[in-house]
């Protein structure tokens, strides 16, 4: 199989272009590829449509950095602080530029990615009936359930097929076969719906390790464009069994990003003047070490023996 291991800067520059639709993390609060968020900002890729159920402060950072033209999602803010200051400035004042919002709920976005993943023309939904989400996002259609004798309104959700999904996983081999565990959010739907997938692997392991437990495989390697080896690449978000959430980082970001100047200072310090993930790790230093989960709580042995 093809060796797909690439440094992050090449993985991004070869697979993401201006105006693309991109999923950066799909597990809601855990497993958000902040290292990729920072690299996209450093490369200055603009006009993006960011698709995410909830990617904590990642979307807010990209908006503030001027990389975002559209948001397709259920929630944009900072889970520790609530409101996203850059999101507010973009929508309320057009700063640093206007952003078009395609409103979703978590479940409507889930159905859009599910449809995209499996080639369905649309998915009927009972949710968001009665919600203004079905009105403010013109992509939705109202219909009647054709199988029901009584009148039964449904909302039809069109598919989403992002150009790229960047997804952190605990471990992968060099060919892109990957294990992911813990809550999965929409990671599998996103991986299957996207045209291309980049994995940020916390650990690169031998192919035999992944093959030993195929039920834990999130995505087989033939669907993956590139694998980047980035321990702690999801920092400050948590990763099951590997990293705790850096709550202080989110709180600090929320506080300083309250003003545009404060955000720009933050951006210089944590993104623009940090050349790559290795430098970011070095900058965090002891702080990152303290977030590492060092205990073990192994699952029971799972056997696939044939005789």
């Amino acid at each position, binding site marked *: 199989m093809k060796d797909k291991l690439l440094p992050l800067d090449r993985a991004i520059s070869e697979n993401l272009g201006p105006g693309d639709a991109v999923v950066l993390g799909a*597990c*809601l*609060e*855990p*497993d958000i590829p902040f290292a990729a968020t920072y690299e996209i900002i450093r490369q200055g890729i603009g006009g993006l449509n960011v698709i995410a*159920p*909830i990617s*904590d402060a990642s979307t807010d950072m990209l908006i503030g950095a001027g990389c975002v033209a559209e948001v397709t*999602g*259920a*929630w*944009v*803010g900072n*889970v*520790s602080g*609530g*409101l*996203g200051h850059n*999101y*507010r400035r*973009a*929508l*309320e004042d057009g700063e640093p530029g206007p952003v078009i919002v395609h*409103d*979703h*709920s*978590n*479940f*409507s976005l*889930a159905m859009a990615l*599910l449809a995209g993943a499996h080639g369905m023309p649309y998915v009927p*939904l*009972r*949710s*968001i*009936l*009665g*919600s*203004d*989400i079905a009105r*403010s996002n013109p992509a939705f259609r109202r219909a009647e359930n054709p199988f029901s004798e009584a009148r*039964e*309104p*449904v909302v039809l959700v069109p598919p989403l097929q992002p150009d790229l999904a960047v997804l952190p996983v605990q471990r992968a081999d060099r060919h892109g076969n990957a294990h992911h*565990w*813990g*809550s*999965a*959010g*929409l*990671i*599998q*739907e996103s991986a299957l719906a996207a045209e291309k997938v980049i994995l940020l692997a916390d650990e690169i392991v031998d192919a035999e390790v992944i093959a030993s437990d195929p039920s834990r495989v999130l995505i087989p390697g033939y669907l993956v464009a590139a694998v980047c080896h980035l321990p702690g690449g999801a920092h400050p978000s*948590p990763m*099951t*069994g590997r990293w*705790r*959430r850096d*709550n202080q980082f989110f709180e600090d970001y929320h506080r300083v990003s309250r003003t545009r100047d404060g955000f720009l200072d933050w951006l210089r310090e944590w993104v623009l003047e940090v050349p790559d993930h290795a430098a970011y790790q070095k900058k965090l230093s002891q702080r990152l070490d303290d977030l590492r989960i060092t205990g073990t*709580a192994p699952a029971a042995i799972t056997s696939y023996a044939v005789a």
Partner: protein
Amino acid sequence: MSYSTQELMIVAAAREIADGDVVFVGMRLPIVAYGVARLTHAPNAVGLFECGIVRYAPAGAVLYTMGDPPNQMGAAWATGLIQVMGQLQRGRVDAGFIGGAEIDRFGNINTSYIGDIAKPRVKLPGSGGAADIAAMAKRLIAIMNHQKRRFVEKVDYVTSPGFLDGGEARSKAGLGGGPAAVITDRCILRPHGPRKELHLASVHPGHNVDEVRGHTGWDLKPLPGLAETAPPSRAELAALHAIDKEGVWR
């Protein structure tokens, strides 16, 4: 026994959970309420988290987000969002808790836009899973701070549907369920009558009807038999203290 306003709200929220209920828990205050309910009157309640987690016993440590490692360890199920939220659409979820920035007299909740959608005065984060929980759980329990700017005649944007324009509007829209209670720092509101308008059901100790009405943006009517919210019992407080060891909510 002394207790804080937040502790009273947690206990009031716990009382909304019946034994055996399947509950969309959410973060912060409701997650503690879920724990109190499990330790007191609802030992068989099941907790659902939209990131893809199902739990029996609540996590053993303070959570900042539902995906934090302590919520993963010992979960009954770690799976995808669709496996969990799909249970809402399947009709299996008895109760769900949400918060909000604005609520109106029919229990509609706004977490999206204050002002005009095209140029909002405040852009709020959006639905997350709240619109889905409000649309499809059998009972919705909202938890909010009670201020006049939050309790409004009509919300600017219905993120999470309550009874819409009241009466039969919700069922005509194709929705079952609906708001069962709104727990605030002053009182508890419940829908009442054919219009399904929120009425004052009980006032917390130390608060009064005039004060609550003064902080409500519509002509809030009391329910017949309006009472004082029952203070936390010894058992409820003991359960709460067993969960909130750090005293975050005291």
